[in-house]
């Protein structure tokens, strides 16, 4: 290592802490200044104070909290259905080569249909209310889970299989002690991606299907009534929920897989 990288390191570490905040601070300052000095049309860009005021009224007297809980309920229900179906099918495809040869190619072709192209068909089948939305969220959560589980089982090193054969493991013991633990990282990758897709689908189903309580419906309302403070608030809420989902998925992943890295 050269001398100059050694000297640069402590400084870089300190910079790592303040620089991100500078960036966020600059964005906030620009936002404040542009509203304050009239660089932008206040009809299009509400002031941070207006968004904060809207947040206060929404959370104290409004329905936003209820909308969020409704969205989360649909999201979790749909994801649970889709992910468990994906997990089961993925494991089956991974363990049975006959199933893989028959179902695999069709599945790969089936997922080439862009996700949102399902919305109208599913709404025709299940209606535009809760059932249609949950069906769409389930389809969204299903796809990454099934593919990752399937590929995860298939990607197990053949040495594991051979070792299990040498130790005369029963088929169930092989699955329990070797295959499932070995596939867990891939399964988590799939679940993580599925969670993200399901959240996207939750928002999409609320934007495209019937109006029911939900955060997507509020975004539509903000757009149609030209209530920019509501729109900005909605987007911030969505970003926060997305961040929370993401970080809790990462946290669970590292926690549950900790013994592998030890």
């Amino acid at each position, binding site marked *: 290592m050269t001398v100059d990288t050694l000297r640069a390191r402590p400084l870089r570490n300190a910079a790592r802490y303040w620089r991100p905040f500078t*960036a966020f601070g600059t964005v906030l300052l620009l936002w404040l200044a542009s509203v304050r000095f009239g660089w932008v049309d206040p009809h299009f860009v509400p002031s941070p104070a207006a968004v904060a005021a809207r947040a206060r009224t929404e959370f104290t007297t409004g329905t936003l909290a209820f909308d969020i809980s409704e969205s989360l309920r649909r999201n979790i229900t749909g994801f649970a259905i889709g992910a468990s179906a994906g997990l089961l099918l993925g494991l089956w495809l991974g363990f049975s080569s*006959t199933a893989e040869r028959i179902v695999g190619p069709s599945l790969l072709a089936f997922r080439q249909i862009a996700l*949102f*192209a399902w919305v109208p*068909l599913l*709404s*025709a089948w299940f209606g535009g209310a809760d059932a249609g939305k949950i069906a769409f969220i389930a389809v969204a959560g299903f796809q990454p889970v099934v593919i990752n589980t399937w590929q995860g089982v298939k990607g197990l090193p053949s040495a594991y299989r051979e070792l299990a054969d040498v130790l005369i493991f029963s088929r169930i013991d092989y699955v329990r002690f070797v295959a499932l633990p070995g596939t867990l990282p891939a399964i988590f990758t799939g679940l993580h991606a599925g969670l993200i897709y399901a959240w996207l689908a939750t928002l999409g189903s609320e934007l495209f299907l019937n109006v029911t309580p939900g955060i997507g419906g509020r975004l539509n309302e903000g757009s149609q009534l030209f209530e920019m403070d509501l729109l900005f608030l909605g*987007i911030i809420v969505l*970003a926060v929920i997305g961040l929370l989902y993401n970080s809790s998925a990462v946290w669970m992943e590292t926690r549950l897989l900790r013994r592998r890295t030890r």
Partner: protein
Amino acid sequence: MTLTASAPRPVEQRMTNLLPVLANVACTISLPLVLLLAWGLSSRFGWLPEQILPAPEVVWATIAELWRDGSLIEHTLVSLRRVAIGFSIGALSGLLAGAALGLLPVVRSFVWPVFTAVAQVNTLAWLPLLVLFVGIDEELKYVCIAWSTAVPVTLATTRSIADVSPNLVELGRVFDFTPMQRVSVIVVPAALPSLFTGVREGLAAAWQSLVIVELFASFDGLGYLITWGRQLFQLELVITAMLVIAAIGLSLNAVLEYLEHFVQPWKTEARHDR
């Protein structure tokens, strides 16, 4: 081994190569055939109402009719043009932004957290806001597709450049490379594989986003065809458009797989999981 002994081998080999392939093809098409049969039987015996699942021959007739009057091609071309323009803008700006973020650590340390926070919010959430800013015309489609392409491309480009092995970078310093040489000789070849993966993800995202934006607001294109069919409760139109979308998705994937192989011939394994 003598020549005579090897003479009958080619035929034998061809046979042994052909049989598993045939078996594979049979397995592959068996499920679609069974599903098609079930679909046909269900429509023949009226197990499901026509509004839920139109008969396969009705869908086929719809495809043929839309093909004959040229509207299927027309809608498809409109959609493809949108994807082409949006994707080009998005991929180019993503590559440039990613290169800037990857090559300049100072810029990265400032901008990266803000960028990841903004990227966290999907295009879908920006749609209601974007509509107010750019209207519902072609610009909306381009902005949307370009944005959803640019996000994965920027992420992948930045990461792939930042992850170039420090040993290689050090080697460049030892050789006293100019910044240009450093980029062209070390960074680009080392970053190329993951960079290409990013572009591929970008194209997939562009295709997804096209459908989203056409469902949201449009008067032509495949997404519009789907919405229109749904409104008229003509599910054969919906299914036709979905089939076209799947077919184009499949061929985009195949083209990119081929290109990936072409760009990095040393990588033999084609990945189906993306």
